[in-house]
């Protein structure tokens, strides 16, 4: 840009808060963590450069298994969220009109007016051994004794899907809304079945929204802490718990930093792979989200 100096100054001042925010809260801590992750403790209070923290991750099966499990479960949660959100978004975007549409979006938003912790506790009230569902199962005679529905993978997935749903519905509904009704009608008119129209017209059109929603939900899921801990208990085994444990419980900051970097690498790699596989660019995707 070759603007006048005054214009440049205005631009700089306008961008300053964003640059400060990015620099101080995102770039700086990450550089710090990156540096920290390469330091090994050689003697009390003496640290040296080394790859030990990363080696530790690969030699201890618990760490990389938790890591792989987190990646796999997050992909599963993202896929489930997409499958659940698609019909809802389709209904909001294509069928609902006027007030009903606004109402439905508000209903999706409503659970987010309470904190994630409270929402998760809500699920615990429903699922625990002495909880609502267990009680109901017993009172209608489907179960002879209290049923523990908490502390398993199903509960973790349920909680994570629930938390991600809104972030999938909004970009999907946005993308589906821009599909011209006549294009869908043309799809039928030329002989397409419901499935053909969905597969060849609706889904390709919604692809930027699908990818945007998947990226957001995947990122939120991979980095989630409260839901796997509360709903999964000891069986949660989410990688964020390992990071937490290193930083807070074991006070091994360099190890925690290395785990943090690995998690960043994992989510970046999977997002990149997702974009490549669907042939979307980050730019068009961000526009949808």
């Amino acid at each position: 840009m070759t603007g006048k100096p005054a214009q440049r100054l205005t631009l700089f001042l306008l961008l300053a808060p964003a640059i400060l925010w990015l620099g101080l809260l995102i770039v700086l801590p990450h550089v710090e963590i990156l540096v920290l992750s390469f330091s090994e403790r050689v003697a009390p209070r003496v640290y040296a450069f080394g790859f030990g923290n990363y080696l530790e991750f690969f030699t201890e099966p618990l760490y990389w298994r938790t890591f792989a499990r987190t990646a796999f479960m997050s992909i599963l949660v993202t896929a489930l969220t997409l499958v659940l959100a698609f019909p809802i978004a389709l209904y909001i975007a294509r069928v609902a009109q006027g007030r009903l549409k606004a109402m439905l979006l508000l209903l999706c938003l409503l659970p987010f007016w309470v904190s994630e912790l409270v929402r998760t506790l809500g699920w615990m009230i429903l699922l625990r051994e002495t909880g609502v569902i267990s009680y109901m199962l017993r009172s209608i005679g489907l179960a002879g004794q209290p049923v523990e529905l908490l502390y398993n993978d199903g509960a973790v997935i349920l909680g994570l899907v629930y938390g991600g749903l809104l972030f999938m519905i909004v970009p999907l509904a946005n993308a589906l809304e821009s599909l011209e009704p006549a294009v869908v009608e043309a799809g039928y008119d030329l002989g397409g079945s419901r499935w053909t129209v969905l597969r060849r017209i609706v889904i390709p059109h919604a692809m930027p929204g699908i990818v945007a929603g998947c990226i957001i939900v995947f990122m939120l899921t991979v980095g989630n802490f409260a839901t796997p801990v509360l709903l999964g208990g000891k069986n949660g085994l989410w990688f964020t718990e390992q990071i937490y444990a290193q930083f807070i419980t074991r006070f091994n900051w360099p190890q925690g930093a290395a785990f943090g970097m690995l998690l960043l690498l994992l989510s970046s790699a999977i997002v990149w792979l997702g974009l490549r596989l669907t042939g979307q660019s980050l730019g068009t995707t961000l526009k949808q989200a």
Partner: protein
Amino acid sequence: MTLCIGSVMASSTDLDIVNVTKRFGSHAAVDDVSFSVAPGEFFSILGPSGCGKTTLMRMIAGFEHPTSGDIRIRGKSMIGVPANKRPVNMVFQSLALFPMMSVGENVAYGLTCRGVSRAQAEERANRMLERVGLKGFGERRVTALSGGQRQRVAIARCLVLEPTLVLLDEPLGALDLKLREHMKIELKQLQGTFNTTFAYITHDQSEALVMSDRIAVMNQGRFEQVGSPRELYHNPATPFVASFVGETNRLQGEAAPAANGTIAVRLPSGAVVQGQGSAAAKAALAFVRPEAVALAQDPAPLSNLPNRFEGRVSAVLFDGAASSLLIDTTGFEQPVRAVLPQAGPLAGIQVGAPIHVGWTADAMKVFAA
């Protein structure tokens, strides 16, 4: 030609609309409409927006369902047949090309839906593109095409399926004037070379007049008149057709029978015009086309015309071959519109010039108001 067993009528028409009514609540968008379209015919439905023509077309395509009546294609009832199973394809007003597909994929889409193999569908699509003058466009994005090319893709996408009937929903509406004039001729030629039955809806009378074999004029859910463009223009059956199809002068007055089979209409000013028609009631409407109005600088050449008036030019509307004059005429509430002669003493006439107008009784159509 396909012959349907057990139905003699079936082979002679491609489309039969039988007493079709469509109600939205208490409002009848289409009100007891019946017509037939012969194979290879270019049939237009002409009407103002909101007259029900789009609803009628959507019922033929299968997107709306008639409240009562029957829609038959080659003698087979289409009631209960979904849109994707009807031998009818539609060119949408917005064209509705699939932006996520290439030009070739757009044309091949319908074939692959029918289970034609990918390779064969592609080959047939390419052949069709060649026939509509888009050879080698198969790989292009539809967004990279001009308005006229998109139009041809939309039509090719239908024709490749060899439908019994192609429906066209004001497909020229989005084009600019020059291209629209060009596409009118091109559409007519395409229809001729493929010999496919076209049902075309439009609110543009010139589109309908230029392209159609027959036109149905529709108003408030009903057909006012069905006929060839010439019939509609020269022998309108209702006042609506007379005023909607083509330019016309409209006069309102009271009818009274006159000598030798004509009807005299007395205008509020007391002036009387002579016309042809069947208005028995008192209130009457009379119409005369601008090109039927004879002009002269002195009264002598018009002396044998039953309708003769004096006036003064109030406006010259120059538009090349379609130029006209507005003439403030004594005894008339509205200025009379007449075609401006392009040659002769009147070609250079100016605003304010005195002028004599006249027309025959045959040229004036009288209807009960």
